[in-house]
């Protein structure tokens, strides 16, 4: 059974409406003291108002488990820790899962991140629609090429749009970045190492801005995005060029590398 986020129940700012069972003195306490004191009062209780989809949950709440495999393990094969965890879950309340969490086998965290970055004004339906159209478009082009290619060339054509997307993103990720560091009243562009998250973010950001800015007025987003992704897959195109330019700048500024102190 697929597990999607719970339905919205009335959100009220009820963190301050504590159950009457708490002694008077604790109601006025700050959040950190409250959490320590609430965990001390562990007994199964249902709050009067349900808190859903906040990021600031009471630490009493447990994380949801969307993966199906966990629930398919039969009783006999559970380790003692898993058994304990299951018992705990039967008493404690669980946080509501967000909409992006699914138990679907087709779930891809990198793609979800890309969809979120493409989203404007919280309209994920449109962003997800654009991405699915892009994947379909890429697959169509590649499969058409595959069916028309002679036998020897068929194995070289990559038809999987997900593989193309991941490879294209890899090809766009910069290895080294630049930071603006002030030394002696002037600002220098200093080459610095980048974390994985930052590299992925930069690759996605460049891809999206490139597709938004440098396209003809009448080209649709999915069309331009599929062209760019296919170009990045074969290491051509503007995004890969931008990555190379960043690398060249970093190379040319190697002299300032010692300005970095971390």
């Amino acid at each position, binding site marked *: 059974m697929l597990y999607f986020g719970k339905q919205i129940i009335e959100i009220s700012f009820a963190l301050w409406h504590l159950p009457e069972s708490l002694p008077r003195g604790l109601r006025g306490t700050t959040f950190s003291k409250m959490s320590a004191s609430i965990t001390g009062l562990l007994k199964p209780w249902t709050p009067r108002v349900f808190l859903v989809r906040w990021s600031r949950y009471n630490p009493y709440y447990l994380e949801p488990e969307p993966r199906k495999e966990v629930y398919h393990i039969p009783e006999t094969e559970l380790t003692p820790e898993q058994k304990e965890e299951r018992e705990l879950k039967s008493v404690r309340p669980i946080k509501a899962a967000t909409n992006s969490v699914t138990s679907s086998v087709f779930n891809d965290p990198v793609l979800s991140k890309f969809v979120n970055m493409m989203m404007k004004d919280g309209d994920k339906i449109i962003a997800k629609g654009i991405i699915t159209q892009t994947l379909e478009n890429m697959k169509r082009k590649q499969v058409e090429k*595959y*069916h028309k290619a002679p036998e020897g060339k068929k194995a070289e054509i990559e038809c999987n*749009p997900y593989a193309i997307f991941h490879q294209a993103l890899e090809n766009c990720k910069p290895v080294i970045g630049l930071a603006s560091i002030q030394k002696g009243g002037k600002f220098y562009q200093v080459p610095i190492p980048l974390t994985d998250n930052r590299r992925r973010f930069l690759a996605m950001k460049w891809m999206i801005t490139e597709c938004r800015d440098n396209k003809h007025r009448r080209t649709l987003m999915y069309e331009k995005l599929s062209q760019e992704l296919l170009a990045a897959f074969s290491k051509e195109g503007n995004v890969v060029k931008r990555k190379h330019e960043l690398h060249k700048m970093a190379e040319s500024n190697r002299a300032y590398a010692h300005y970095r102190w971390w």
Partner: protein
Amino acid sequence: MEWHQTPGNHALCMRYHSTPAITTSLSSPIKVPPSSCGQEAVGMELETRPETLSIFRTQENDPACQSEQHLGQYYTVPPSHFHTVFPHGLPPRYQQQVKTFNEGCVMVRQPALELISHLKRADYSKPTMRYLLYGVKGSGKTMSLCHTVHYCSTQGWLVLHIPDAHLWVKNCKELLPSSYHASRFDQPIQASNWLRNFRTTNEHFLSKIKLRQRYVWTKRESTEEGRPLGELVDMGVSRVKSSSDVVGAVLKELRLQAGGTEGGFRLAVAVDGVNGLWGRTTLKKEDKSPVAPEELTLVHNLRKMINNDWCGGAVIATLSQTGSLYAPSSAYLPQELLGEEGFDSMDPFVPVPVSLYSEKEFESCYLYYLDRHWLQHPHSRTEEGKKELIFLSNRNPSVLERLCAFL
């Protein structure tokens, strides 16, 4: 397994080069005993091979010879026929699929087989039978109609295929007042487009059918009796202003001559979205009052065609909610979509329900997509992924197609 298209022979012939490791790569473990598909092997250069590979394809490309044993299997429409038979009838997503896969494969399904068997056994000296395909959105009504149209054209019938009657009652930029009848309106662009496609479909009939009446278009233009139909159609395509009246004339001539004993041909009228002919339009006259469908020449003439007062052919129609105007999206039954007026005009008709994919048909579709390298996501080839596809699409053909498009 390699699929070759040998030059000069349009049917695909299978020549196996690789080992039985292929059967393991297909996730479905269905094995068909060799005896049931034996007839397909006749005439093909097949070595003894497990028939697991042909479970979703059949070599029987002629709709007349297809029967219940081919249910759920895909047959290929020969590429030579494709552009003549279907210049305008296919759903747009299917046309894209044909372009991508480089072949046009249609699944043999129960509604189409039923229709074809009715057409084979009907008495053509009696008034025309009307057949109506109905079903939920995306269940395959248009594709069944196209399958039947393919059958009719292989049997040498004259096919009048109106791809979507809704296109004639909405989004019309030019609405000319008709010269023939004062209160009617002409749609020159739609009519000339349709005539062009009609000409492509029925080339060989155009020179054989002679007109039985003289038609006067303007003071100086007229078409005499005895001229071939082709001339009339060419005139309609070139003179866009009178194309709607030409369509009316063509329909009238065909109606009169269809059941004729000398040089008689059979006429198949295939209308998609027939519920658009009754109901409301979104077109407006110059004083902003709405145009009723009767006031459009094309619709008026088509309604006369759908009446069963002529003989020597059949009317095959499809209901469609997708392009319809002012109809709720959950409506799919004939009563709901045709309305009172439409139902009374269509009555009596043979209803043919089109259902969602059965398990066998779903398997077949899934294997076809796997074969054409359309399902690319690694998880879509597992059992888990297949179960998820069944759950998400509810075996609805169009929803499944859209899901598999990005997987």
